[in-house]
């Protein structure tokens, strides 16, 4: 194949994948009142307006809370699980792996409905708590998988040596294992954060009046209002995700872990 053909195919594909974003960025920078492209004059007023919409601020705070603490909780129980699955010859390890991975396989909307009907309502759990639990469960498979793969690359004899030299098993874990897998843990955190922050289907049924995650708030906002503020917000969120991933890639070669 000639170079021209190669770049023609790649150019078309990438335009299809990324072009729409550039359009959103510009549509959000419109000076007009309705969503159009090309924008009617350029201004940053919609980008500024996003920060003044109260429901966006509330839902952004909730999404941040869920993404940070849901992922941290998932890591808190996921790291020991990954360690156990990698370092102990557990009978039934495959079963444990399948159970922990299950939330990825089941469609999100089913997860949300199931938790609403058979967890939230019978146990009278608050919506925020329900969202927290759901997001933790959804992020856990990624935490276990990414940490597992970085444990796989770390030879077990290092810990054994530490134990022989007088460390307790726990000290060996903290002093030898943790420092060596911190790149994997950070990668798992970023992947979990992005997954949780962008999650919609599972949170759909668990969102109540006044308690909504940001993407769901955007969905309901665009049903009512047809102004460029959602375009501006979409562009800002895209920048945020890209910036996080870019920094992670530069710092630790994020893509190795995913």
């Amino acid at each position: 194949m000639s170079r021209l053909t190669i770049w023609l195919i790649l150019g078309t594909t990438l335009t299809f994948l990324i072009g729409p974003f550039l359009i959103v960025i510009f549509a959000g920078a419109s000076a007009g009142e309705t969503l159009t492209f090309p924008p009617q004059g350029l201004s940053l007023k919609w980008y500024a307006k996003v920060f003044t919409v109260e429901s966006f601020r509330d839902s952004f705070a909730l999404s941040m809370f869920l993404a940070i603490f849901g992922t941290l909780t998932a890591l808190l129980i996921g790291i020991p699980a990954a360690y156990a699955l990698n370092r102990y010859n557990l009978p039934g390890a495959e079963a444990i792996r399948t159970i922990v991975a299950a939330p990825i396989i089941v469609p999100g909307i089913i997860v949300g409905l199931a938790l609403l009907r058979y967890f939230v309502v019978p146990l009278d759990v608050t919506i925020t708590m329900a969202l927290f639990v759901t997001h933790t469960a959804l992020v856990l498979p990624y935490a276990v998988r990414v940490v597992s793969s970085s444990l796989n690359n770390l030879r077990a004899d290092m810990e054994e040596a530490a134990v022989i030299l007088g460390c307790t098993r726990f000290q060996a874990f903290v002093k030898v294992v943790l420092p060596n897998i911190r790149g994997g843990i950070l990668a798992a955190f970023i992947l979990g954060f992005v997954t949780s922050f962008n999650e919609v289907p599972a949170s759909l049924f668990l969102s109540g009046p006044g308690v909504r995650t940001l993407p769901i708030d955007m969905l309901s906002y665009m049903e009512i209002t047809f102004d460029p503020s959602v375009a501006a917000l979409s562009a800002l969120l895209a920048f945020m995700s890209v910036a996080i991933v870019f920094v992670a890639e530069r710092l630790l070669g994020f893509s190795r872990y995913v």
Partner: protein
Amino acid sequence: MFLNRSEGFALALPAALFTFLVFLVPVGILLSAAFQAEPGVWSLQGYVDFFSESLNQSVFLRTLKLGILVAGTSAVIGYAAAFCIVNLPASSRGRIFGLVVLPLMISPVARTYAWIVILGRTGIVNDVIVGLGLSETPIRLLFTETAVFIGLLQLFLPLMIISLVSAMENIPRDVVPAARVLGASWFQVFFRVILPLTKEGLVIGGTLVFTGALTAYITPAILGGSKVLMLETLLYQKVNVSNDFVSASVIAMILIVMCFSANLVLKRIASVRS
């Protein structure tokens, strides 16, 4: 490898127990509700009722059709794009691959919203159509199957490309030139060399794209609305509009069965070819 098993179980227990209790148990109960049209009585009545409505039938068939179309189209584009990426010089390969992966990190709401700007009444496509005089008034492009198809394709194409690129990277570099030198046409090169060597990647990518398209909520909700329902949006309606939890459970069961069988069928096809 440590031998103290109870210690190992203790470490794995919180994660397993957590997922089991807050995830598997509720989902299990929900799925079992699909077999109880009346509480406590086990039957397939829920399925009979569901499929006897013509709306439900057409939504089911549309979901299946869109899933297959999106997976098929992304396989065709994916092979072309992946082949190009693998043949790029090392310096630009990483960067181009990064651009393919990039959209996956961005919120699906933002990604789908872009198509409103493009396909809406005052969007770019309609501006061009009206501007060129092809139509007097804007054409309805949103809330059509085509819009949902385009949205889903854009959402899931990267998954196919990634799977195929990693499969193709394992083909020894000189295999394709060797086949060409020995007289194979590009057509033969693809079907006799590339396809057999990358079918595992195709199975993984195909499963990801098909199940992704089947279970996407945002795209059919934004680009299809209530005019072009898919199973996910229908499930949402059954719950929030008609309070029909039996049908919702039936849809849940159908979705899960479709996802699992897609994987099995693709694996079977791949193993027959060899």
